[in-house]
């Protein structure tokens, strides 16, 4: 596996935004055949609770904008000092260009700030942090804005949708010659590329009318469309509990720390059962990790690792120093873990924000027609 030790990387701030439109699993009794016992069982096994979903017209890029603006304002970041913006996102506003450029514009970043997009899901935050750490270690950057956001509400495949909550995080990562060392261990298995996939979404099977209404019955008994995301739950469960614990154990050895030295482990919040298995097999105790963020906010995809920090550790990382394990795993298949110190960082906690009055689909079409015909000036 790919390992790295960085001695000049410091996470100095983190803000996290969820759209303030909560949905309780209790409102989805129909999905459990109207049987309260089935719902109770699902809550116990999976950890279902509340999740937050974006209103129409609000995209992961909009959520990232809100998280980034809060970070910039609260930390009084001098934008001229930002050398790079890294955007980790699977659902950018456009298939081209990447959303890093939209965010570059919205934050009024200078032309000296480079933009980079990473197409990564659940393991994405740790992958992005690894890239940021590499850029700081080589001294090609001094300050990097890391943005990540995801949403799932566009998918009508209800079974999967109930797992996911929308969110975005903004993180400032800085060059610090006296930073405590950070350790990374990353891996991937392309053989599992199709266990979490959106089959009709790119160049391989572009969305056309022939797939719009094509409903298929998956082997787990759920109906879905090829334009929706497909998730093979059992395979995801199996590769997660097979690959992640050895990755974490290797990282402990590489970093020279014991599981007991970790103050808290922020695991990707896939669901309660997967988290419990991975943590137990990694040698961690119940007070060293939590699946509460899944239950209160849903699986936030690439945002879930910062989500745990914002949700569970806000006060502890704001006022003290914590040695944390950050661990993401999922789509790819990929997995990545990191041991780093969070030492008196700015942490917003989880901010619930309204996104009313977003542009409608009609507004969007009209905007682009005017933009392209020259009938209007750029107003994005």
């Amino acid at each position: 596996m790919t390992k790295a030790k960085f001695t000049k990387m410091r996470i100095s701030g983190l803000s996290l935004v969820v759209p303030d439109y909560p949905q309780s699993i209790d409102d989805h009794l129909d999905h459990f055949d109207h049987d309260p016992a089935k719902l109770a069982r699902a809550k116990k096994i999976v950890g279902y609770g509340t999740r937050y979903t974006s209103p129409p017209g609000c995209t992961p890029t909009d959520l990232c904008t809100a998280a980034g603006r809060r970070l910039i304002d609260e930390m009084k970041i001098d934008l001229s000092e930002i050398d790079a913006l890294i955007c980790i996102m699977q659902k950018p506003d456009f298939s081209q260009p990447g959303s890093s450029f939209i965010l570059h514009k919205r934050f009024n970043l200078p032309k000296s700030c480079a933009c980079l997009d990473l197409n990564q899901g659940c393991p994405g935050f740790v992958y992005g942090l690894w890239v940021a750490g590499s850029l700081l270690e080589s001294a090609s950057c001094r300050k990097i804005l890391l943005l990540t956001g995801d949403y799932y509400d566009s998918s009508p495949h209800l079974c999967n949708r109930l797992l996911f909550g929308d969110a975005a995080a903004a993180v400032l990562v800085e060059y610090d010659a006296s930073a405590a060392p950070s350790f990374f261990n990353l891996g991937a298995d392309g053989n599992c590329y199709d266990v979490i996939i959106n089959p009709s979404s790119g160049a391989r099977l572009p969305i056309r009318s022939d797939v719009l209404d094509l409903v298929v019955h998956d082997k787990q008994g759920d109906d879905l469309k090829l334009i929706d995301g497909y998730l093979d739950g059992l395979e995801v469960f199996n590769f997660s509990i097979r690959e992640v614990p050895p990755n974490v154990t290797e990282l402990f050895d590489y970093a020279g720390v014991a599981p007991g030295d970790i103050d808290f482990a922020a695991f990707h919040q896939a669901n309660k059962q997967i988290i419990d298995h991975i943590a137990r097999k990694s040698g961690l105790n119940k007070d060293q990790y939590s699946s509460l963020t899944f239950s209160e906010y849903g699986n936030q995809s690439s945002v879930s690792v910062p989500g745990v920090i914002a949700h569970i550790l806000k006060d502890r990382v704001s006022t003290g120093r914590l040695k944390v394990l950050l661990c993401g795993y999922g789509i790819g298949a990929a997995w990545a873990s990191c041991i780093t110190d969070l030492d008196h960082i700015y942490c917003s906690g989880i901010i619930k924000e309204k996104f009313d009055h977003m542009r409608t689909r009609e507004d969007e079409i009209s905007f682009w027609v005017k933009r392209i015909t020259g009938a209007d000036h750029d107003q994005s």
Partner: protein
Amino acid sequence: MTRAEFLAELQDILQRDEPLDAEMVLKDLPEWDSLSIMAVAGFFDKEFSKTLNFTDFESFITVEDLMARAGI
């Protein structure tokens, strides 16, 4: 783990009120769904260090088949 313990554990995983016996057909149990399949896969990994995939689950007809795979 004894067979009686396995049956009790499986009953708990399925969150089922009535006891189970070895001859029961899995597909006839109302609690046997994708949720229980993942929970049973977790139980096998934890207790027996065995990985169960989709093909395994397709081959399990009765509770007895599960116990045979567990080796008890």
